[in-house]
């Protein structure tokens, strides 16, 4: 156990810090969940790419820097220290990218990863269906082979970024007679392919970040299938592991929130309850605990280990931490908590953050499902419904 950075790691931190200080927009961008904000965030992805910061852990051949996970964590810490915007392409770089790296052909890696790292193609996910939410194996959208194409018919929903993004990925039933986890295939598709209709869904905050997707005999070339036909479930589970495990929510994000919460507490100390004070301390402690744990996971992966079902513990922890930090902030704000903009005109980011944090325990597999996974796969308890 060595908890000090090497001189090279410290120098790398300084390099990231200098670049971020020079380039991160001084004013917060408009929310990613509307046209104007989406365009601003895509512009930011391209600015990041101009500094070659799109996805630092990927090989240089695919638009990355070939850095290790400790350097990635340092990059993320500095990113959030500087107040870097949300990543418009998070579905691509954090979820699909690692999946392509693991399952893609050389040709697919070349074709998809570099434009992803450079922010040239923005990705939406298309997992859920009206009848397949937490129970993803209930997927019924079909992709039927017809020569060198799949013909997709069906419906996806809660597709993050799909209102504005360029491409999407998801799993589809390629064997119409199959049931549950079998007969599914992981397919990448251009969202502008004829036959795809996007219907943006207005979210809790009133903006439209995700969308329903309707597929009406959409023809997608077979080379857009990732891994083999029928392998979709395994590939999707790997993607879900990246989502819940390491990549999607790096600790810097929560440490930055905890720090802002401490600052908010200092402003409102006179009116704050002892419970709020303790909750602020819990926020700092839990965000630190999350960071230590992540450094442990990173070290394990660097030594050749894999993330298994413990990714579920991770997802439960960060999503409930995020919600509780924002709940505490709302309590500290008191009457001002309801304002979308404060009297000085600045956006109430605590309110936006609180609303967004309510989705955390739901997306990427609801926390109820994560607790089932924890109980069944980590603790070895019998599966639900088993006798």
């Amino acid at each position: 156990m060595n908890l000090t950075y090497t001189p090279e790691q410290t120098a790398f931190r300084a390099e990231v810090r200098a670049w971020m200080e020079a380039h991160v927009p001084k004013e917060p961008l408009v929310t990613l969940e509307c046209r104007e904000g989406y365009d601003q965030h895509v512009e930011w992805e391209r600015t990041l790419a101009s500094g070659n910061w799109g996805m630092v852990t990927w090989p240089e051949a695919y638009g990355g820097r070939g850095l290790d996970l400790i350097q990635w964590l340092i990059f993320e810490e500095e990113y959030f220290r500087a107040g870097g915007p949300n990543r418009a392409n998070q579905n691509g770089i954090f979820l699909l990218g690692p999946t392509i790296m693991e399952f893609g052909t050389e040709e697919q890696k070349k074709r998809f990863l570099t434009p992803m790292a450079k922010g040239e193609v923005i990705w939406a996910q298309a997992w859920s269906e009206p009848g397949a939410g937490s129970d993803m194996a209930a997927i019924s959208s079909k992709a039927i082979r017809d020569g060198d194409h799949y013909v997709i018919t069906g419906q996806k929903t809660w597709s993050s970024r799909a209102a504005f993004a360029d491409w999407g990925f998801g799993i589809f039933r390629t064997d119409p007679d199959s049931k549950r986890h079998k007969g599914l295939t992981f397919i990448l598709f251009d969202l502008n392919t004829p036959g795809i209709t996007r219907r943006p869904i207005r979210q809790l905050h009133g903006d439209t970040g995700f969308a329903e997707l309707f597929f009406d005999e959409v023809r997608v070339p077979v080379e857009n299938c990732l891994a083999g036909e029928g392998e979709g479930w395994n590939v999707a589970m790997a993607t879900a592991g990246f989502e819940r495990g390491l990549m999607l929510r790096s600790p810097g994000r929560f440490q930055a929130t905890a720090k802002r919460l401490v600052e908010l507490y200092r402003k409102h100390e006179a009116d704050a309850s002892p419970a709020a004070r303790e909750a602020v301390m819990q926020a700092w402690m839990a965000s630190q605990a999350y960071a230590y744990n992540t450094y442990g996971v990173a070290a394990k992966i660097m030594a050749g280990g894999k993330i298994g079902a413990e990714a579920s513990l991770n997802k439960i922890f960060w999503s409930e931490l995020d919600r509780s930090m924002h709940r505490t902030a709302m309590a500290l704000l008191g009457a001002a908590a309801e304002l979308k903009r404060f009297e000085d005109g600045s956006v109430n980011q605590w309110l936006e953050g609180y609303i967004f944090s309510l989705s955390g325990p739901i997306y990427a597999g609801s926390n109820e499902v994560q607790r089932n996974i924890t109980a069944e796969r980590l603790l070895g308890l019998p599966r639900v419904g088993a006798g």
Partner: protein
Amino acid sequence: MDFRFSEDQLTLAETVRDYLSGTHGPEVLRRLDAAKEQGNAPRDPAIWNGLIEMGLTGLLVPEAQGGLGMGLVDAALIAAECGRACVSEPLVDTAFVGVPWLLAKGETDQLAAIVAGEVKVPLPHAINPWVADDTPSRLRGNGELVSVDPLRCLSKGTGGDDPHLLNLAALMSAAQLVGLADAMLSQATEYAKIRTQFGQPIGAFQGIKHQLASCAVAIEFAKPVVWRAAAAMQDGLDSAPLHVSHAKVASTDAAMLTAETAIQVHGAMGYTYEVDLHFWMKRSWALAGAWGSRAFHLKRVDKAVLGGAQPIGPEHTFA
């Protein structure tokens, strides 16, 4: 930067775990408890001798003085194993707290005797109104200090306020607490697999699963805090007391949650003296309050973080 235990550390911990699970099972705790009921000390020289033979009394003693010369991170890992097995012999107090405390003070005359297991180091400190030792109060003719933990003997505490002793002991209490929590989760989980009601193991019900999963989350995220505190103490960081306090709070919360959940999962059986769970639960209650309560340690975190002495934010993970 490598937040992992070495292969050697993991092997050592596994060796100790295997040894204790083979020689120090619940039947040993019941036997010691029965001895105490008879008015004898709840101790067995064979247990202490076994720990000495494994070299654990000398774990932190420098090699020049006949020890293994290991560090506080190694010791914290073994302290967690002592918690897991609910060891009552003063190994953690003497060898993992007393020894580094004496070394820091430059007092080395007793080290050889400590390695040999002939000397147990008392740890007087003002923070503890009473201290754990080997002699039941009944044998001293003093009936007033009886711990809920049947294997923990108490006597009146006195002492100074050496902060280094406090930090060492709070760290090792935290390490024992995560081991205790692990053991309680595992006992509750095993019970939920075999106890059937409504035609299935109760562990198949989500009402049980989700509670146990929440304990697994709390333990998973308490452990790295303890290891980080041990590393901070080992490296002598100025911020080490803060990290020790964080570790004590996180490990206490994980152990208290797991204790309450484990008794609930055991149902009425959990409320009996027959199920061994109570040994671990009561040890957790005792350690939660020893060497600074949750409130004491939370205040230290508060003072450092809200007071501004500790730099916070994403770039200060290891400050």
